[in-house]
């Protein structure tokens, strides 16, 4: 029996979901969300990226080792951002 793999149907369903999220994010930019604007638009972007990674880039159908490699870049980027903001956010703390 063939291992689970990407199919045309999944491609089209994924595409539909991505377009819905795009419409949502464009609308959200004009909605009165106040302080929630940035988290909402970035959250939707993260969801779109997750859909592309999981389905179009087929991480859904790959083994765990490949998925670890795929996420590694974000781990290191997290280190960059953490150390950078740890510097800037604490600059006023000492006299």
């Amino acid at each position: 029996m063939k291992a689970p793999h990407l199919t045309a149907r999944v491609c089209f369903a994924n595409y539909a979901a991505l377009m819905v999220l795009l419409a949502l994010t464009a609308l959200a930019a004009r909605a009165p969300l106040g302080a929630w604007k940035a988290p909402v638009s970035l959250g939707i972007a993260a969801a779109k990226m997750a859909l592309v990674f999981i389905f179009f880039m087929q991480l859904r159908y790959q083994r765990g080792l490949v998925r670890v490699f795929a996420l590694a870049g974000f781990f290191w980027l997290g280190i960059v951002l953490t150390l950078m903001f740890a510097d800037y956010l604490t600059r006023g703390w000492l006299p």
Partner: protein
Amino acid sequence: MSNTLTHPAASPYSDREQHAVANHLGMWTFIATEILFFGGLFASYSLYRWAYPAAFVTGSKHLEFWIGTLNTGVLLTSSLFMALADLAVRAGRRGALRWSLLATWLLGALFLGLKFYEYHLAAKEGHVPGAHFRLEVPQAPQVELFMFLYFAMTGLHAAHMIIGLGAIAWLLWLNHRRRLGADHDAPVSMVALYWHFVDCVWIFLYPLLYLVR
């Protein structure tokens, strides 16, 4: 029986599946370096948006919202066709592979056309940082900084798109020479990963640049 691919003296791979996994690990390692490459600019952006939130709103409002939104749709559609190309090569369907690669290429070219048109509009209205910057807004230096990040990030992305278009043209040529098929699909799969990643970069650039309110 062993063949040129599986004979131990001829290949470091134990079987076809392991070879495919090795290809993926290598490609994802490269994508990790790309995440950090773009990540540097994203880090700069994060810092200055944290420091100058109002100026970033002003800058974002001076971008072409509808071109940016349309371009996002164009790239998502190109990813759909690239995914279909991946399916086609693994099914050995050369005709389907050709038109899906062509569609991907044309949508990528459309994206770049719209992008350069946008740059042209920005230049006309004095948004380009440097000697010709002429936006009369509060916090103009910080808005100029936003514009610098806009051109740097979308410019780096556009360079990646141009490379991607070259890679797809190469795949079209390979297909024309009948060098792609169910048992030789790695070029398509790997270029597809690259293309989808470049799409993901834009997926993040879009809200960060166009939707700051």
